Protein backbone atom coordinates (compact mmCIF):
# COMPACT_ATOMS: atom_id res chain seq x y z
CA UNK A 1 0.00 0.00 0.00
CA UNK A 2 1.18 3.45 -0.74
CA UNK A 3 1.47 6.18 1.80
CA UNK A 4 -0.72 9.21 1.34
CA UNK A 5 1.42 11.99 -0.02
CA UNK A 6 2.49 14.22 2.82
CA UNK A 7 2.84 17.40 0.77
CA UNK A 8 -0.63 17.38 -0.68
CA UNK A 9 -1.94 19.87 1.79
CA UNK A 10 0.07 22.86 0.76
CA UNK A 11 0.20 22.01 -2.90
CA UNK A 12 -2.00 24.74 -4.29
CA UNK A 13 -0.08 28.01 -3.96
CA UNK A 14 3.28 26.68 -5.10
CA UNK A 15 1.80 24.95 -8.14
CA UNK A 16 -0.38 27.82 -9.20
CA UNK A 17 1.99 29.31 -11.78
CA UNK A 18 3.04 25.98 -13.22
CA UNK A 19 0.44 24.32 -15.40
CA UNK A 20 0.41 20.54 -15.55
CA UNK A 21 2.95 20.12 -12.82
CA UNK A 22 4.45 16.75 -12.16
CA UNK A 23 1.72 14.25 -11.54
CA UNK A 24 3.72 12.51 -8.89
CA UNK A 25 2.42 15.13 -6.50
CA UNK A 26 -1.18 14.20 -7.29
CA UNK A 27 -2.75 11.89 -4.83
CA UNK A 28 -3.23 8.30 -5.89
CA UNK A 29 -6.89 8.47 -4.95
CA UNK A 30 -7.43 11.36 -7.38
CA UNK A 31 -5.52 9.65 -10.17
CA UNK A 32 -7.31 6.33 -9.78
CA UNK A 33 -10.62 8.07 -9.61
CA UNK A 34 -10.00 9.70 -12.96
CA UNK A 35 -7.99 7.07 -14.75
CA UNK A 36 -10.21 4.15 -13.82
CA UNK A 37 -13.66 5.65 -13.69
CA UNK A 38 -13.52 8.39 -16.23
CA UNK A 39 -11.95 8.98 -19.56
CA UNK A 40 -13.53 8.19 -22.86
CA UNK A 41 -14.63 4.59 -23.18
CA UNK A 42 -14.00 2.78 -26.44
CA UNK A 43 -14.13 -0.94 -26.70
CA UNK A 44 -10.70 -2.44 -26.92
CA UNK A 45 -10.01 -5.95 -28.21
CA UNK A 46 -8.90 -7.03 -24.83
CA UNK A 47 -10.95 -5.44 -22.27
CA UNK A 48 -12.32 -5.43 -18.89
CA UNK A 49 -15.86 -4.58 -19.82
CA UNK A 50 -17.59 -1.67 -18.27
CA UNK A 51 -19.45 -3.59 -15.64
CA UNK A 52 -16.26 -5.29 -14.57
CA UNK A 53 -14.45 -2.01 -14.24
CA UNK A 54 -17.23 -0.68 -12.11
CA UNK A 55 -17.16 -3.73 -9.88
CA UNK A 56 -13.42 -3.54 -9.64
CA UNK A 57 -13.61 0.11 -8.83
CA UNK A 58 -16.06 -0.59 -6.08
CA UNK A 59 -13.78 -3.28 -4.70
CA UNK A 60 -10.86 -0.90 -4.94
CA UNK A 61 -12.76 1.87 -3.33
CA UNK A 62 -13.33 -0.38 -0.40
CA UNK A 63 -9.70 -1.40 -0.45
CA UNK A 64 -8.35 2.12 -0.56
CA UNK A 65 -11.14 3.36 1.62
CA UNK A 66 -11.35 2.39 5.20
CA UNK A 67 -10.63 -1.27 5.62
CA UNK A 68 -12.11 -1.15 9.09
CA UNK A 69 -15.37 0.25 7.81
CA UNK A 70 -15.58 -2.42 5.16
CA UNK A 71 -15.03 -5.09 7.78
CA UNK A 72 -17.77 -3.59 9.89
CA UNK A 73 -20.03 -4.05 6.92
CA UNK A 74 -18.96 -7.64 6.69
CA UNK A 75 -16.97 -7.14 3.50
CA UNK A 76 -13.71 -8.97 3.96
CA UNK A 77 -13.21 -10.97 0.80
CA UNK A 78 -9.62 -9.85 0.46
CA UNK A 79 -8.71 -11.59 3.69
CA UNK A 80 -9.42 -14.92 2.05
CA UNK A 81 -8.11 -14.05 -1.39
CA UNK A 82 -4.58 -15.42 -1.72
CA UNK A 83 -3.66 -12.87 -4.38
CA UNK A 84 -4.58 -9.99 -2.14
CA UNK A 85 -3.73 -10.91 1.37
CA UNK A 86 -0.56 -12.07 2.95
CA UNK A 87 -2.74 -13.02 5.85
CA UNK A 88 -4.73 -15.64 4.02
CA UNK A 89 -2.25 -18.23 5.22
CA UNK A 90 -3.58 -17.69 8.70
CA UNK A 91 -1.91 -17.23 12.07
CA UNK A 92 1.30 -19.12 12.93
CA UNK A 93 -0.80 -21.52 14.97
CA UNK A 94 -3.04 -22.23 12.01
CA UNK A 95 -0.02 -22.69 9.80
CA UNK A 96 1.53 -25.14 12.21
CA UNK A 97 -1.76 -26.95 12.47
CA UNK A 98 -1.94 -27.20 8.70
CA UNK A 99 1.66 -28.40 8.50
CA UNK A 100 1.07 -31.06 11.12
CA UNK A 101 -2.05 -32.25 9.37
CA UNK A 102 -0.13 -32.52 6.13
CA UNK A 103 2.60 -34.50 7.87
CA UNK A 104 0.08 -36.81 9.46
CA UNK A 105 -1.56 -37.31 6.12
CA UNK A 106 1.80 -38.15 4.55
CA UNK A 107 2.61 -40.65 7.29
CA UNK A 108 -0.76 -42.31 6.88
CA UNK A 109 -0.18 -42.59 3.19
CA UNK A 110 3.29 -44.06 3.73
CA UNK A 111 1.86 -46.62 6.05
CA UNK A 112 -0.85 -47.53 3.60
CA UNK A 113 1.78 -47.93 0.90
CA UNK A 114 3.80 -50.30 3.05
CA UNK A 115 0.76 -52.43 3.63
CA UNK A 116 -0.23 -52.43 0.00
CA UNK A 117 1.89 -55.45 -1.00
CA UNK A 118 0.60 -57.37 2.00
CA UNK A 119 -2.91 -57.64 0.60
CA UNK A 120 -5.70 -55.15 0.99
CA UNK A 121 -7.95 -57.53 2.85
CA UNK A 122 -5.36 -57.91 5.56
CA UNK A 123 -5.34 -54.22 6.12
CA UNK A 124 -9.09 -54.08 6.32
CA UNK A 125 -9.20 -56.89 8.77
CA UNK A 126 -6.52 -55.23 10.82
CA UNK A 127 -8.31 -51.92 11.04
CA UNK A 128 -11.66 -53.50 11.82
CA UNK A 129 -9.94 -55.46 14.51
CA UNK A 130 -8.62 -52.29 16.01
CA UNK A 131 -12.01 -50.66 16.10
CA UNK A 132 -13.49 -53.78 17.58
CA UNK A 133 -10.98 -53.71 20.36
CA UNK A 134 -11.64 -50.06 21.09
CA UNK A 135 -15.37 -50.46 21.16
CA UNK A 136 -16.58 -50.64 24.75
CA UNK A 137 -18.52 -53.83 25.26
Amino acid at each position, binding site marked *: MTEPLPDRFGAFPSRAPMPYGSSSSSSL*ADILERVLDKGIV*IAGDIRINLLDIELLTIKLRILIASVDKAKEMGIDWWEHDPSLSSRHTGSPLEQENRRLRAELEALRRDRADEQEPAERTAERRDSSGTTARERPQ
Partner: protein
Amino acid sequence: MSTGREPLTYVYAVARRTDRLAVLLAGLRGIDRAPVTLLTEASDSSPAPLAFVTSHVPHEAFNESALRAHFEDLEWLESVARAHHEVVQAVAAEQTVLPLRMATVYQDDDRARQALGEQRSTFARRMAAVDAHTEYGVKIYLPPPAPAEPPAGAPAAEADPAAPTASPGKAYLQRRRVQHRARERTYEQAQRAAATLDAIAARYAVGRVRHAPQSGALTGPQENVLNDAYLVPDEEARDFRAAVAQAAGDFPEIRIEITGPWAPYSFAMPPAESSAPTEGERAP
Protein backbone atom coordinates in the same frame (compact mmCIF):
# COMPACT_ATOMS: atom_id res chain seq x y z
CA MET B 1 -2.14 -14.08 -32.71
CA SER B 2 -3.02 -17.46 -31.37
CA THR B 3 0.39 -17.78 -29.77
CA GLY B 4 -0.42 -14.69 -27.73
CA ARG B 5 3.20 -13.64 -27.72
CA GLU B 6 3.02 -10.45 -29.76
CA PRO B 7 2.87 -7.26 -27.76
CA LEU B 8 -0.50 -5.52 -27.51
CA THR B 9 -1.31 -1.93 -28.34
CA TYR B 10 -2.25 0.14 -25.32
CA VAL B 11 -4.07 3.41 -25.99
CA TYR B 12 -3.65 6.31 -23.58
CA ALA B 13 -5.51 9.12 -25.24
CA VAL B 14 -6.73 10.77 -28.41
CA ALA B 15 -4.84 13.82 -29.63
CA ARG B 16 -4.00 15.59 -32.86
CA ARG B 17 -0.77 14.72 -34.57
CA THR B 18 1.55 17.69 -34.78
CA ASP B 19 5.31 17.92 -35.13
CA ARG B 20 5.61 19.42 -31.68
CA LEU B 21 3.68 16.58 -30.13
CA ALA B 22 5.81 14.03 -31.95
CA VAL B 23 8.94 15.67 -30.54
CA LEU B 24 7.45 15.72 -27.07
CA LEU B 25 6.49 12.06 -27.22
CA ALA B 26 9.94 11.07 -28.41
CA GLY B 27 11.22 11.92 -24.94
CA LEU B 28 8.39 10.18 -23.12
CA ARG B 29 8.12 6.69 -21.68
CA GLY B 30 4.87 4.92 -20.97
CA ILE B 31 3.94 1.74 -19.14
CA ASP B 32 7.01 -0.40 -18.49
CA ARG B 33 9.15 2.45 -19.85
CA ALA B 34 8.01 1.62 -23.37
CA PRO B 35 8.37 4.34 -26.04
CA VAL B 36 5.18 6.26 -26.74
CA THR B 37 4.09 6.73 -30.33
CA LEU B 38 1.27 8.29 -32.34
CA LEU B 39 -0.99 6.14 -34.47
CA THR B 40 -2.94 7.83 -37.21
CA GLU B 41 -5.35 6.45 -39.67
CA ALA B 42 -4.68 6.74 -43.40
CA SER B 43 -8.05 8.17 -44.44
CA ASP B 44 -7.69 11.22 -42.17
CA SER B 45 -6.10 13.76 -44.49
CA SER B 46 -6.34 16.86 -42.31
CA PRO B 47 -3.06 18.64 -41.52
CA ALA B 48 -3.38 17.64 -37.87
CA PRO B 49 -5.12 14.25 -38.02
CA LEU B 50 -6.60 12.61 -34.97
CA ALA B 51 -4.20 10.13 -33.45
CA PHE B 52 -4.08 7.56 -30.72
CA VAL B 53 -1.29 8.02 -28.23
CA THR B 54 -0.08 4.46 -27.77
CA SER B 55 2.66 2.18 -26.60
CA HIS B 56 3.19 -1.54 -26.72
CA VAL B 57 2.59 -3.64 -23.65
CA PRO B 58 3.44 -7.29 -23.05
CA HIS B 59 0.67 -9.73 -23.80
CA GLU B 60 1.32 -11.69 -20.60
CA ALA B 61 0.50 -8.71 -18.42
CA PHE B 62 -2.41 -7.26 -20.37
CA ASN B 63 -4.48 -10.14 -21.63
CA GLU B 64 -7.95 -10.38 -20.23
CA SER B 65 -7.33 -12.74 -17.35
CA ALA B 66 -4.08 -11.06 -16.36
CA LEU B 67 -5.82 -7.70 -16.27
CA ARG B 68 -8.59 -9.09 -14.16
CA ALA B 69 -6.09 -10.27 -11.60
CA HIS B 70 -3.96 -7.14 -11.80
CA PHE B 71 -6.85 -4.82 -11.26
CA GLU B 72 -7.04 -6.00 -7.71
CA ASP B 73 -3.36 -5.50 -7.07
CA LEU B 74 -3.05 -1.99 -5.81
CA GLU B 75 0.70 -1.78 -6.38
CA TRP B 76 0.46 -2.83 -10.01
CA LEU B 77 -2.52 -0.61 -10.47
CA GLU B 78 -0.72 2.38 -9.06
CA SER B 79 2.29 1.99 -11.32
CA VAL B 80 0.18 1.57 -14.45
CA ALA B 81 -2.25 4.31 -13.44
CA ARG B 82 0.59 6.72 -12.83
CA ALA B 83 2.27 5.82 -16.11
CA HIS B 84 -1.02 6.24 -17.94
CA HIS B 85 -1.66 9.51 -16.20
CA GLU B 86 1.81 10.88 -16.87
CA VAL B 87 1.48 10.29 -20.60
CA VAL B 88 -1.94 11.90 -20.63
CA GLN B 89 -0.78 14.91 -18.63
CA ALA B 90 2.29 15.38 -20.83
CA VAL B 91 0.10 15.49 -23.93
CA ALA B 92 -2.41 17.75 -22.17
CA ALA B 93 0.35 20.23 -21.39
CA GLU B 94 0.99 20.54 -25.11
CA GLN B 95 -2.48 20.43 -26.64
CA THR B 96 -6.08 19.31 -26.35
CA VAL B 97 -6.36 15.69 -25.35
CA LEU B 98 -9.11 13.16 -24.76
CA PRO B 99 -7.93 10.80 -22.06
CA LEU B 100 -9.00 7.20 -22.47
CA ARG B 101 -9.94 5.01 -19.61
CA MET B 102 -7.09 2.93 -18.29
CA ALA B 103 -6.44 -0.47 -19.90
CA THR B 104 -7.87 0.14 -23.34
CA VAL B 105 -5.93 -2.49 -25.23
CA TYR B 106 -5.96 -3.65 -28.87
CA GLN B 107 -4.51 -6.78 -30.44
CA ASP B 108 -2.17 -4.74 -32.61
CA ASP B 109 -1.67 -1.36 -34.22
CA ASP B 110 -3.92 -2.19 -37.16
CA ARG B 111 -6.86 -2.96 -34.93
CA ALA B 112 -6.27 0.26 -33.02
CA ARG B 113 -6.20 2.24 -36.28
CA GLN B 114 -9.44 0.63 -37.32
CA ALA B 115 -11.08 1.63 -34.02
CA LEU B 116 -9.77 5.15 -34.42
CA GLY B 117 -11.31 5.37 -37.88
CA GLU B 118 -14.66 4.06 -36.69
CA GLN B 119 -15.04 6.65 -33.99
CA ARG B 120 -13.34 9.61 -35.53
CA SER B 121 -16.39 11.85 -35.59
CA THR B 122 -17.19 11.18 -31.93
CA PHE B 123 -13.63 11.98 -30.95
CA ALA B 124 -13.60 15.15 -33.02
CA ARG B 125 -16.80 16.33 -31.32
CA ARG B 126 -15.47 15.67 -27.84
CA MET B 127 -12.14 17.28 -28.68
CA ALA B 128 -13.97 20.41 -29.75
CA ALA B 129 -15.95 20.42 -26.50
CA VAL B 130 -12.89 20.31 -24.25
CA ASP B 131 -10.58 22.36 -26.45
CA ALA B 132 -8.88 25.18 -24.51
CA HIS B 133 -10.48 23.95 -21.30
CA THR B 134 -8.87 22.43 -18.24
CA GLU B 135 -10.25 20.30 -15.47
CA TYR B 136 -9.81 21.24 -11.83
CA GLY B 137 -10.81 19.26 -8.81
CA VAL B 138 -12.27 20.99 -5.77
CA LYS B 139 -12.77 19.17 -2.52
CA ILE B 140 -14.09 20.11 0.86
CA TYR B 141 -12.72 18.36 3.91
CA LEU B 142 -13.96 18.53 7.46
CA PRO B 143 -11.39 18.32 10.21
CA PRO B 144 -11.41 15.07 12.17
CA PRO B 145 -13.84 15.16 15.12
CA ALA B 146 -12.57 17.29 17.97
CA PRO B 147 -10.70 15.59 20.81
CA ALA B 148 -12.42 15.09 24.15
CA GLU B 149 -10.96 18.31 25.60
CA PRO B 150 -13.12 21.34 24.91
CA PRO B 151 -11.42 23.40 22.21
CA ALA B 152 -9.73 26.63 23.19
CA GLY B 153 -12.43 28.67 21.54
CA ALA B 154 -15.29 26.98 23.39
CA PRO B 155 -17.75 29.40 24.96
CA ALA B 156 -16.33 30.20 28.41
CA ALA B 157 -19.77 30.70 29.96
CA GLU B 158 -20.62 27.05 29.43
CA ALA B 159 -17.36 25.46 30.33
CA ASP B 160 -16.30 27.54 33.31
CA PRO B 161 -18.91 27.13 36.05
CA ALA B 162 -19.37 23.50 35.25
CA ALA B 163 -15.80 22.32 35.13
CA PRO B 164 -14.74 22.40 38.79
CA THR B 165 -18.00 21.32 40.43
CA ALA B 166 -19.97 19.20 38.00
CA SER B 167 -20.36 15.50 38.50
CA PRO B 168 -18.44 13.32 36.04
CA GLY B 169 -21.63 12.47 34.19
CA LYS B 170 -22.66 16.06 33.83
CA ALA B 171 -19.18 17.14 32.79
CA TYR B 172 -19.18 14.40 30.19
CA LEU B 173 -22.49 15.51 28.76
CA GLN B 174 -21.33 19.09 28.67
CA ARG B 175 -18.18 18.09 26.85
CA ARG B 176 -20.26 16.14 24.41
CA ARG B 177 -22.46 19.15 23.83
CA VAL B 178 -19.49 21.39 23.11
CA GLN B 179 -18.17 18.80 20.68
CA HIS B 180 -21.52 18.48 19.05
CA ARG B 181 -21.87 22.23 18.59
CA ALA B 182 -18.41 22.49 17.11
CA ARG B 183 -19.35 19.75 14.68
CA GLU B 184 -22.56 21.50 13.76
CA ARG B 185 -20.62 24.69 13.13
CA THR B 186 -18.24 22.87 10.83
CA TYR B 187 -21.05 21.31 8.85
CA GLU B 188 -22.71 24.67 8.54
CA GLN B 189 -19.48 26.18 7.25
CA ALA B 190 -19.11 23.33 4.78
CA GLN B 191 -22.59 23.99 3.52
CA ARG B 192 -21.93 27.67 3.04
CA ALA B 193 -18.60 26.89 1.40
CA ALA B 194 -20.32 24.55 -1.03
CA ALA B 195 -22.78 27.30 -1.92
CA THR B 196 -19.89 29.72 -2.42
CA LEU B 197 -18.12 27.23 -4.68
CA ASP B 198 -21.32 26.83 -6.66
CA ALA B 199 -21.41 30.56 -7.23
CA ILE B 200 -17.75 30.58 -8.26
CA ALA B 201 -18.37 27.71 -10.64
CA ALA B 202 -21.33 29.47 -12.18
CA ARG B 203 -19.06 32.38 -13.01
CA TYR B 204 -16.05 30.53 -14.37
CA ALA B 205 -16.74 26.89 -15.13
CA VAL B 206 -18.63 25.40 -18.05
CA GLY B 207 -19.10 21.94 -16.64
CA ARG B 208 -19.20 20.08 -13.38
CA VAL B 209 -18.98 16.42 -12.49
CA ARG B 210 -19.68 15.39 -8.96
CA HIS B 211 -17.46 12.52 -7.85
CA ALA B 212 -18.21 10.39 -4.84
CA PRO B 213 -16.51 11.76 -1.76
CA GLN B 214 -13.28 9.93 -1.05
CA SER B 215 -12.77 8.19 2.22
CA GLY B 216 -10.21 6.26 4.13
CA ALA B 217 -6.62 5.25 3.84
CA LEU B 218 -5.58 7.32 0.85
CA THR B 219 -7.37 10.44 2.01
CA GLY B 220 -6.13 10.83 5.55
CA PRO B 221 -8.10 11.44 8.70
CA GLN B 222 -10.19 14.31 7.38
CA GLU B 223 -13.66 13.67 6.12
CA ASN B 224 -14.20 14.50 2.47
CA VAL B 225 -17.71 15.84 1.99
CA LEU B 226 -17.51 17.31 -1.50
CA ASN B 227 -15.48 16.10 -4.46
CA ASP B 228 -16.22 17.99 -7.64
CA ALA B 229 -14.49 18.31 -10.97
CA TYR B 230 -14.94 21.50 -12.97
CA LEU B 231 -14.22 22.19 -16.60
CA VAL B 232 -12.81 25.70 -16.79
CA PRO B 233 -11.94 27.68 -19.92
CA ASP B 234 -8.20 28.32 -19.92
CA GLU B 235 -8.54 32.09 -19.90
CA GLU B 236 -10.64 31.87 -16.73
CA ALA B 237 -8.39 29.40 -14.94
CA ARG B 238 -6.37 31.97 -13.04
CA ASP B 239 -9.44 33.79 -11.75
CA PHE B 240 -11.17 30.53 -10.92
CA ARG B 241 -8.25 29.35 -8.85
CA ALA B 242 -7.93 32.69 -7.14
CA ALA B 243 -11.62 32.66 -6.27
CA VAL B 244 -11.39 29.15 -4.83
CA ALA B 245 -8.28 30.11 -2.85
CA GLN B 246 -10.18 33.13 -1.53
CA ALA B 247 -13.07 30.90 -0.48
CA ALA B 248 -10.61 28.60 1.27
CA GLY B 249 -9.45 31.58 3.31
CA ASP B 250 -13.01 32.59 4.15
CA PHE B 251 -13.85 29.27 5.77
CA PRO B 252 -11.05 28.57 8.23
CA GLU B 253 -12.68 25.64 10.02
CA ILE B 254 -12.87 23.46 6.96
CA ARG B 255 -10.31 22.72 4.29
CA ILE B 256 -10.97 23.50 0.66
CA GLU B 257 -8.50 21.84 -1.65
CA ILE B 258 -8.09 22.50 -5.33
CA THR B 259 -6.31 19.93 -7.47
CA GLY B 260 -5.20 20.14 -11.04
CA PRO B 261 -4.76 21.20 -13.69
CA TRP B 262 -6.00 17.86 -14.94
CA ALA B 263 -6.48 16.61 -18.44
CA PRO B 264 -10.26 16.62 -18.95
CA TYR B 265 -10.75 13.07 -17.64
CA SER B 266 -14.11 13.75 -16.11
CA PHE B 267 -15.40 15.43 -19.26
CA ALA B 268 -14.05 13.15 -21.96
CA MET B 269 -17.44 11.48 -22.16
CA PRO B 270 -20.58 13.56 -22.47
CA PRO B 271 -22.86 12.69 -19.55
CA ALA B 272 -25.53 11.14 -21.78
CA GLU B 273 -23.20 8.80 -23.64
CA SER B 274 -21.56 7.41 -20.57
CA SER B 275 -24.43 5.01 -20.00
CA ALA B 276 -24.13 3.45 -23.46
CA PRO B 277 -20.40 3.07 -23.84
CA THR B 278 -20.26 -0.14 -25.83
CA GLU B 279 -22.14 1.13 -28.83
CA GLY B 280 -18.91 1.47 -30.78
CA GLU B 281 -18.64 -2.30 -30.51
CA ARG B 282 -21.60 -2.85 -32.75
CA ALA B 283 -20.19 -0.77 -35.56
CA PRO B 284 -18.84 -2.98 -38.36
